[in-house]
Each structure stands twice: as C-alpha cells, then as structure tokens.
C-alpha cells in the first residue's frame, strides 16, 4: 500500500523561460489529465500532482527536488526539461532512491553513462530524432545532406547521429556549417547551404535558432528552389509559432502527433480545451509517463520505489502516446517515432492540422540498442 496515505507526483520544468512552450504549464495539465483518467486514486489513496518552475537553473531544480523528496513526500518527479536539469535531478533521485521520468530533455546520457535504476527516459532523445529524420528521409530520396549545426555539444551529436544514419542508408553528407548558439541571422549560412546543392538541409539546432533558420530559408526561396529542410528538434508548438507559410515542406520527427488516429485526436481535443493548444510529444509523453507510473504502482501494490521501478521496467506501455512501448533495462522507453512533413497552408483543413505522417519509425530502430548505450545496468 501507499506509504504516506497518498501518491505525490512532481512536474518540474521550465514555465517561464525559453522552453515554456515546449512543455511548460501544459505538461502539468497533461499530468492532471492522466491522474483523472486513472480515476484520481491509486491503491485507494489520492494522487496529487505538484509543479514547479525550475527557470532552467539546475541549482533551483535540485533544491526543489531535494525539498520535494525530503520534506514534501513527493514520490517521483517527471518532465524535467533541459538536459543539465534532468541529469542533476536524476542524480539526486538516484541518491534518494526515487523515481524520475524524463520527457522534456533530449540527452542520451540519461540512459547512457549517467543512467539510474530509478530513472526513465520517456518521449524522445537526440538519437531517435536523428534516426527518424536522417534515416527515413534518405529512403524518401533525400540522399545528399548539408547541415546547419548549432555550435555546441547538442548540435554536434544531432549532426553526427543524423549523418551516420544518412550514410548508413546510402546517402552522403556534402557539407556542414557550424553556427553559434542564438544566431539571429542565418542568411550567410543558408546561402552556403544553398550553393552546396544538397537535397536536404538538416537543421541540427533547436528552438528559436531553428525557427529563424526556417523563416529565413523561406525568404531566400530555398524550398521553392527544390531543397528540403529537415529540423532535427522541432515540435508542433514551434511549427505553430512559425506559421504554415514559413514552415511548409519542413520535415521533422516527433514521438506523437495528435491527428495520427482517432484516439490521439480525441486526446488532443481534450487537451486543447484545457490548455488552448494541441499537445506535442512532450505533453503527450508526460501524460503517458504519469499514467504508466500509476499503473505500475497498482501492479506493485505499493508506492515503494524499488517495486515500482521493477514494474515500470516490466510493464508494456499501451496508451494514447505509445502503442507498443517497452522499457529497456537502461530506463529507455522504446516506442515508435513518426516522420512528419509540414502541410502547405491550403492542405491544412482545421486549426492545428499541420502534419502529414510520412513514415513510422519502429522503436527498435529509433532508439539506441540498450546494450550499446553505455549504461552499466544493462547486463550484456
């Protein structure tokens, strides 16, 4: 049974900073929806969700995490946007023997060298994005690539992973240019990409950088010129911010699309009613993570960490987010990813109808083979 008369879940993410649209307050809504859908109670005790804004500062996040665990009987922490925060909180959770499920951060370190027996990585990671966009696009004919890469570790790993998949599938990488983080003007880089003659321009960056690059690519007529843009980390929320005029033709990978099928559409509309926007993979992933966590508690018959973690590893995932998900020993939730293309304005039939699903990437291909992940929990 539950240790202290209730099960408490903390949603810790950025609610006021650069990633506020990516997850933000809406992730908290998603968690509440999951609790409601589960019935509000588990093992006969109420489920409570608390939330905090870590302001993208690992020290604030870590203070809150400790306080939650030590004095507020929080049983698990989820979402955790931005990798420095996610890694820091996962380390604390490991030390305190608590469960954390990351849906907001991208780094594969979470299930690699810095993995935790109680840590899970749910929605996506840099690897799956690279495989999705890189691999699948080559199969669609985009076999020569030029990268616009944000000049730091995150950008490199996206570029490298994607490049590998491009080559593995028989494509070539004709060039790359490294641009500084928070560049506003991409025209120089875009001209270089344009003159490279590559069929696909891969945007190995994130957030506002990607948005600006896409917007300016439209201005310079890159897509009309026959080249394809592929964003390596970009979600529905950002496409919405950019508008279909600028974003049309863009290819990207997400772990979820609300208009994928009927069930997802129903979920999307419910979410929309509560938050004013459609969910992206972070929101849906958080929903799924909470739901699965509650299922695991019920299955284990207790909210005690070891037992719940064991169930989380064992239970298959089957909900609106993931259809045939499994959890690997390193904590990675393996599920299908989707290669999506942004519709032209006249193809879009209703608000938020932004994507065409180009391909489904099976989980096995999308995520790193746990044995290769570098996580010491995986026995080879």
């Amino acid at each position, binding site marked *: 049974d539950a240790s202290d008369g209730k099960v408490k879940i903390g949603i810790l993410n950025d609610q*006021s*900073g*650069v*990633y*506020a*649209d*990516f997850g*933000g307050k809406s992730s908290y809504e998603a968690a509440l929806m999951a609790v409601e859908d589960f019935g509000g109670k588990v093992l006969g005790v109420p489920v409570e969700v608390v939330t905090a804004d870590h302001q993208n500062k690992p020290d604030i996040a870590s203070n809150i995490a400790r306080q939650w665990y030590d004095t507020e009987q929080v049983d698990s922490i989820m979402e955790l946007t931005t990798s420095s925060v996610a890694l820091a909180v996962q380390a604390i959770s490991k030390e305190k023997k608590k469960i954390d499920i990351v849906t907001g951060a991208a780094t594969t370190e979470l299930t690699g060298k810095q993995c935790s027996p109680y840590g899970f990585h749910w929605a996506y990671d840099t690897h799956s994005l690279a495989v999705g966009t890189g691999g699948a696009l080559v199969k669609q004919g985009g076999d020569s690539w030029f990268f616009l890469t944000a*000049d730091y570790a995150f950008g490199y790993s996206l570029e490298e992973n994607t490049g590998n998949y491009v080559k593995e599938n028989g494509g070539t990488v004709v060039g790359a*240019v*490294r*641009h*500084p*983080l*928070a*560049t*506003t*003007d991409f*025209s*120089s*880089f875009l*001209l*270089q990409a344009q*003159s490279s003659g590559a069929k696909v321009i891969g945007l190995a960056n994130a*957030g*506002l950088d990607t*948005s*600006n690059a896409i*917007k*300016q690519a439209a*201005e*310079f*007529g890159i897509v009309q010129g026959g080249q394809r843009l592929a964003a390596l980390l970009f979600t529905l*929320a*950002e496409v*919405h*911010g*950019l*508008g279909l*005029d*600028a974003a049309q033709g863009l290819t990207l990978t997400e772990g979820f699309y609300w208009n994928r099928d009927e069930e997802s559409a129903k979920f999307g509309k419910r979410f929309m009613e509560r938050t004013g926007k459609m969910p992206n993979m972070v929101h849906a992933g958080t929903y799924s993570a909470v739901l699965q966590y509650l299922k695991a508690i019920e299955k284990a018959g207790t909210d005690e960490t070891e037992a719940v973690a064991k169930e989380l590893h064992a239970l298959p995932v089957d909900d609106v987010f993931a259809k045939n998900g499994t959890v690997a020993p390193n904590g990675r939730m393996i599920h299908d990813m989707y290669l999506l293309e942004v519709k032209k304005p006249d193809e879009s039939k209703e608000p938020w109808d932004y994507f065409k699903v180009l391909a489904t990437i099976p989980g096995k291909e999308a995520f790193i083979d746990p044995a290769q992940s570098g996580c010491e929990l995986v026995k080879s």
Partner: protein
Amino acid sequence: MTMIFGIPLQAFLGQLLIGLINGSFYALLSLGLAIIFGLLRVINFAHGAQYMLGAFMAWLLLSYLGIGYWPALILAPLLVGLIGAVIERTMLRRLYTLDPLYGLLFTFGLALTIEGTFRYLYGASGQPYATPALLMGGANLGFMFLPIYRGWVIVFSLVICLGTWLMIEKTKLGSYLRAATENPVLVQSFGINVPFLLTLTYGLGAALAAIAGVLAAPIYQVSPLMGSNIIIVVFAVVVVGGMGSIMGAIVTGYLLGIAEGLTKVFYPEASNIVIFVIMAIVLLLRPAGLFGRDA
C-alpha cells in the same frame, strides 16, 4: 572566376551585402543607444526589449486590429516611443542625479519586466509576421538572390540613420541635446525646457529601437527573446565605436555587421565572438573607441 580569400568574388559580394543587412540593425540600435547615452548618461539596457516591443507591436497591430506593415512602421515606433517617454517621465528621471550605474540597473530591471511579460503572455517560441506584399520576392543580382525586403531594410535604415544624424548634428536641437548632456541645470537656466528634452530623447531612442524591431519582424521570428539576444552585441558595437559621436555609432554598426557577416563565411564558429574580439583589440589600441573623442 575571380577569387577573394579562396572564395569566389560573387559569393564574397553576396556575403558583404548580407553583412550590411545585419549591420543595418546594429546601426539603428547603436544609434538609439548612443543618443540616449549621450544625453541621459543612461546605458539603456532596455533597448533590446524596446526593439522586441517594436516587433511585437507590429504583430499585435496586425493580429488584433488588422493594421498592416506600412502603418505599423510608423505606429509601432510612435507607441513604443510614447511608452518610453512615460517611463522616463515617471521613473527614469529620478535617477539622473545619481551615479549612471543606477540608470543601467533600472533599465536592466525594465528589460526583464518587459521581456518576462511578453514571454508570459505569448510564449517563447515567437509569432509569425509575413513580409509585406509589396516587398515580397527577390531580385537576382547575378551574384546572389537578394530578397527585396532585405534591400528595403538597408535603404530604410540608411535613411533613418542619416536623418537622425542630420537632425542631431545640424540643428539647434542637436546642440541643446549635447549641451544638456554636460550641464542640464545650466542649459535649463538659459531658458530651455530640459526635462522635456530628456523625455523626448528617451522617446526618440526607444522609437529608433522600435523601428529596428518592425524592420526585423518579417525576417526574424517575433519572439520575446529577440531583444536580449542582440543587445549585448550592440553594447560591444557601442564600445568599439566609442560614444563620442552619433556618426561613430552608425558607421561602426555597419562596419561590424559586415565584419560579422564575413566571419560567417571564413570561420563561422567565431562569428558570435568576432565583435567581442574586435572590441578587445580596439580597446588595446584606441581605448576611447574608433570614434571616441577623449584620448
């Protein structure tokens, strides 16, 4: 084909032009900063926020009132200038008698507040703003494809910069402004309404930032973060120029824009620090900046 530094002349020209576009924004922004600093001795940290406000104002006018780009090009700066004037009247002016650093700190707080508010209301990922129909499309210049809108940015920013310069250097208003910088009380004792002049100046500086913002809206994502990303670079531009002269701010703005543009070709990784490096070198060789007056 003619080659320059290992790249074709044509590509080189293209990059030069693109640098100039970047420089247009730097010039407009550092011009506003220099004017505000020149008269108020305030480093306007909120300048970036006012730039962002200009862009957002254009977007708000469009999405809520259906007012398009052209009217917005006048209305948005006017509104932002007005907001600036009100802020100066009610708050900033209490700080003039204090050490200039308080002005810096106040505007820093102001910048956080404005930016935070927009982030809170409209999120961080930004809003779309379309290029005005008249300036849609591009021209093939032979060496590059130049979007017409970008050409417009260069021309318009040049006009604004020169106009402002003429107004300040060649009119009585300019000498009032410069004199009031040094000794406002005395200028006031001559019968000139200095408080009003100060309000006007801050409003003008803010409006210049807003003009840059409106110009930027169709090119960059209209996002609450757009200001803080650019403002630190503009500060460096201002240090390099040396705030001695208005012309200095303008010329340095364009020059550094070009320098940055060329770095993007030859050594892209350094393109965000090239201005800081130039700043360090200039400080070593000419501590007062390229156009600074005091040696």
